[in-house]
């Protein structure tokens, strides 16, 4: 029997027996890829010719002046093809799938961002593709569903459970235990059974290694702090990876939803509401009740609305290496608006969580300090949510008129 990947006390591989061989194969394929320098080169070439890596590190001069503290730099994962860091992971896994000779991929998606990325990868690599997406998310992220379908993917709305991300993951596993011979499950974040947390982190680490090089080039110094939003934890692990061995404070920002005190949030590491458990194949902090049943979570950002969290981040928290904070829905919309106005950047609602905390702390730092925020994705995909949050009457009128046009 094989060693399952643990990160301190967290991680592991709690999978049905029927998947054990499939995971063994995946662990091997990943290990071989990792050991093969040509593989990473192929990956980098793909990412620079199909997406636009390296993505820039943008100096946010206006925000810096606005807050009057540390100099704010923004790592621009929003400029990836398909609009988020998710591209890094799916393209990497796509190369692994090619190596394994499989012909079909499946994926879960919450915000729809990972679904679009996976469907894009499938189109590019010529794989069949099925995307599982909670019914609630299908509703709130319809534009992404539309594009997934145009990309040739079948989008299956998941109506079980809380009908969001975690339920989509369960459904994807159900598909996988049936079709593992032909199919690879492209998990979208640094969660799930080994080797997913490590593999996804590896592909996302391209963010951190670029960011480290760029910040040194542009400022001649390491950042004092690095901020990233934390859903499953992949973009955070991606950027943190570049600074783990440096004297850099790493800050993960979770969904504070309607406020930690309301219980309507998705903060696993920043709140006391979570406890250690085992679900969806791995051990980490979950938002669960005393019996171990998973709770409903809430976030304005579909991509952060998840009960579990990367076991690697759980470990880094225990080790005191990463600090965690939460940002409420309201703070997020405020930070998003400010960032749009001041810098002409439109961070995704997910990414905006990282901005909230950075904005809170920037004024306490000095102009000699540099901070880096990971803008994991772009916010245009969120227009329905953002327009609702802002309550734009013209947008509502537009939608009403469109509906009338369709009814006519």
């Amino acid at each position: 029997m094989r060693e399952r990947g643990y990160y301190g006390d967290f991680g592991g591989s709690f999978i049905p027996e029927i998947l054990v061989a499939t995971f063994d194969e995946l662990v091997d394929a990943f290990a071989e890829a990792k050991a093969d320098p040509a593989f990473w080169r192929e990956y980098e070439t793909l990412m620079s010719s199909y997406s636009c890596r390296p993505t820039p590190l943008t100096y946010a001069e206006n925000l810096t002046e606005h807050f009057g503290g540390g100099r704010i730099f923004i790592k621009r994962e929003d400029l990836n093809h398909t609009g988020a860091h998710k591209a890094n992971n799916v393209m990497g896994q796509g190369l692994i799938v090619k190596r394994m000779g499989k012909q079909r991929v499946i994926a879960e998606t919450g915000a729809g961002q990972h679904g679009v990325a996976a469907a894009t990868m499938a189109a590019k690599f010529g794989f069949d593709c099925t995307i599982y997406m909670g019914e609630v998310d299908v509703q709130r992220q319809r534009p992404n569903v539309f594009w997934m379908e145009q990309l040739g993917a079948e989008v299956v709305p998941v109506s079980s459970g809380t009908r969001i991300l975690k339920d989509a993951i369960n459904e994807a596993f159900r598909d996988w235990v049936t079709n593992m011979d032909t199919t690879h499950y492209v998990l979208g974040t640094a969660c799930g059974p080994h080797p997913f947390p490590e593999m996804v982190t590896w592909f996302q680490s391209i963010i951190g290694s670029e960011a480290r090089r760029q910040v040194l080039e542009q400022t001649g110094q390491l950042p004092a702090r690095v901020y990233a939003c934390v859903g499953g934890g992949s973009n955070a692990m991606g950027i943190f990876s570049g600074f783990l061995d440096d004297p850099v404070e790493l800050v993960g920002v979770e969904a504070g939803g309607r406020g930690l005190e309301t219980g309507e949030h998705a903060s696993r590491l920043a709140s006391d509401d979570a406890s250690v458990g085992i679900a969806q194949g791995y051990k980490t902090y979950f938002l669960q009740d005393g019996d171990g049943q998973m709770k409903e979570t809430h976030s304005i950002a579909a991509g952060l609305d998840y009960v579990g969290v990367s076991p690697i981040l759980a470990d880094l928290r225990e080790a005191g290496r990463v600090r965690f904070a939460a940002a409420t829905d309201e703070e997020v919309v405020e930070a998003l608006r400010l960032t749009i106005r001041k810098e002409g950047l439109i961070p995704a609602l997910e990414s905006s969580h990282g901005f909230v905390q950075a904005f809170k702390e920037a004024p306490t730092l000095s102009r000699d300090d540099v901070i880096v925020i990971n803008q994991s994705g772009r916010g245009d995909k969120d227009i329905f949510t953002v327009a609702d949050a802002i309550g734009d009457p013209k947008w509502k009128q537009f939608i009403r008129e469109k509906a009338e046009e369709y009814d006519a």
Partner: protein
Amino acid sequence: MLEAILRSRREEQEILLMTHIVIGYPSFDDSLRVVEAMVEAGVDVMELQIPFSEPIADGPVILHANQQSLAAGSSVDLCFEFGEAVSRRFDIPFLLMTYYNILFKHGIDAFAQRMADAGLAGAIVPDLPPEEADEYLAAMQKRDLAPIFIFSPNTSDARMGEIARVAKGLVYCVARKGVTGADTTFSEDLDAYLARCRAATDLPLALGFGVKDRADVDHLRGRVDLAVIGTQTIRVMDEQGVDGVKPFIEGLRGPA
């Protein structure tokens, strides 16, 4: 314990029947009536599933039952009470089936203790591979409870051997890929697979996933020790009500 009971039952029956319910679905009362009906219909051993919010190895029918049970207010405590009640009242072995988080949150040793206190015979935890099971194995062993593990068609011979070393009571052989509840076509591959299972362990073999009618059970006669009827009983109950359960089970093995 469990193994001995099964072996002695096997002396009377060419094939044993193991059935599955989700505790509290559609209600605790109905669950009790179903157990009653099954025992009367001659079932040899039963799996009682403590519902979990994320049952990733279960198909839509059992998933739905899990969710309904939870929505109706099921809890681990209530499930233990139920387990204790039926095992006191009926003279067949009862197993718990649930996902690992339920044990983990409860405390694994405490969970095993409660199982023992309730008179339960063993447990099936589909998301707990033997690699992760040290604490669980110790707790079960201490109370002479059967930790039941699973073979699947793509479990290698070597791995079957390793699983067999820690398994007790019976080995649950999954007939095919997939989740619970889909149809299974019993093919020649099945014989080869079962031969591998048999070679790996002396424990009674139970075959599950897709066993749904008398023909299936007949087919398994002589091939395994137990036929597991899981999803199909829930379907019968959903479609015909609790009263449909007894005739259904009787028809699986009774006179043609």
